[in-house]
């Protein structure tokens, strides 16, 4: 498996990449909460949010196509809401269609909810993509630890991050082995094969976990992973934080 499968583009260099992970995490969270709290009809505030996040994406030199492709993960949910629109509470009717015997009318209230949800979701996912594509997961975890997330969770997550590559490789090898031997078969049989693969993977993972623990004991593992790189707030973090905060606050005050 290619290593860039996870945190792709996080090794580029830009102003955003150089910020402290804590700054970026808090900024993303503030941005998302601010978007979620913005009232439905407040289009100017959403426009300001969009300007902010797109300019940051441009500064971070992320390929636009990659960002758009990644943002499509919200699509199933947008579709789900779109399906419900015709059934929403009655209001002023924006249009009505006849689908076979069914008269479906779409109300403005319903369309507003759809637009609102879609815009909010897209803004939030852009900021999440910005965060994850400009920060190495290892640094982000270190930052989260300093922000007060319990050490145990951070350690488990760091172990998980290290072994994702090993186990995904193992899973892909098993899949290749299955695909080169199996000629299809019924659906039930396929599920059974998959179950056997997952079961084998579980047993191997469990045994691997035990031998990792034994290896850690041999080497005198304390309760911390030490690394040379230290995080530090720099002047750039302070100026970014102030500028970012001002934009968010002004979007709340001016357009409320």
């Amino acid at each position, binding site marked *: 498996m290619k290593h860039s499968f996870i945190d792709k583009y996080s090794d580029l260099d830009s102003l955003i990449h150089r910020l402290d992970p804590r700054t970026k995490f808090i900024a993303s969270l503030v941005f998302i909460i601010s978007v*979620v709290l913005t009232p439905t009809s407040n289009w100017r505030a959403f426009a300001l949010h969009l300007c902010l996040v797109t300019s940051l994406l441009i500064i971070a030199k992320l390929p636009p196509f990659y960002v758009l492709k990644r943002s499509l993960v919200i699509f199933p949910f947008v579709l789900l809401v779109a399906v419900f629109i015709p059934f929403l509470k009655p209001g002023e009717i924006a249009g009505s269609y006849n689908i076979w015997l069914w008269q479906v009318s779409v109300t403005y209230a319903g369309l507003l909810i759809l637009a609102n949800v879609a*815009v909010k*979701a897209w803004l939030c996912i852009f900021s999440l993509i910005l965060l994850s594509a400009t920060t190495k997961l290892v640094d982000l975890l270190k930052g989260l630890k300093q922000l007060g997330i319990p050490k145990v969770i951070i350690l488990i997550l760091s172990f998980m991050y290290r072994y994702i590559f090993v186990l995904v490789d193992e899973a892909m090898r098993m899949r290749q082995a299955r695909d080169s031997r199996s000629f299809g078969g019924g659906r039930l049989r396929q599920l059974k094969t998959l179950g056997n693969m997952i079961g084998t993977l579980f047993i191997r993972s469990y045994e691997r976990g035990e031998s990792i623990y034994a290896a850690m004991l041999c080497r005198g593992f304390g309760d911390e992973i030490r690394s040379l790189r230290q995080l530090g707030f720099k002047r750039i973090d302070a100026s970014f934080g102030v500028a970012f905060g001002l934009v968010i606050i002004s979007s709340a005050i001016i357009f409320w």
Partner: protein
Amino acid sequence: MHIPDGFISAPVAAVGCVVAGGSVAYAVKATKKKMGEKQIPLMGVLAAFIFAAQMLNFPIAGGTSGHFVGAALAAILLGPWRGILIMTCVLVVQCLIFQDGGLFALGVNILNMGIIASFVAYYIYRGSALFGEGRKRKLIGGGLAAWFSVVIASVACAFELAISGTVPLKIALPVMAGIHALIGIGEGLITAAVLNLIMATRADLLELQKA
């Protein structure tokens, strides 16, 4: 079922974060008491296992494919608290790396796919012990537990979306539950197949949740 940001209102998301935070903190304490230091590598590797298992797709009708969720399997094999801890790590990584599920909505996602799914699966599996102890019972119990964990998590998801005012409950509920009742069949069959394999090869691993 990973809810993105923007689909649930701020109060619902905030309540989700508080509930998830509290439960995860308790889960950390509970597993630490049982496993000590060993908790860290083992939970980490098993979270990576669930993550890897989720990448193995299987075909559903009409060219679409589904994947295994794993919350039920983790809870059945390791107990509900360890299951919650593992699923939380999986969801955090999915959110931070793949943007699968929102950041502010993370609490709600942990609540649905971690806490609710783990407890439902664990207690249905344990409850099925009342009907006998045989191998068949364990397989059926495990399959049902997995089916219910998926369906009830989706019901919770529908309620959260409805409370947020995004979709009306009387339609969201049957649609979400209906879709996931179908998805859950795959989950149930796979979980039963996994249990079947583990019973045949490493039956001792089925007793982990008591350790």
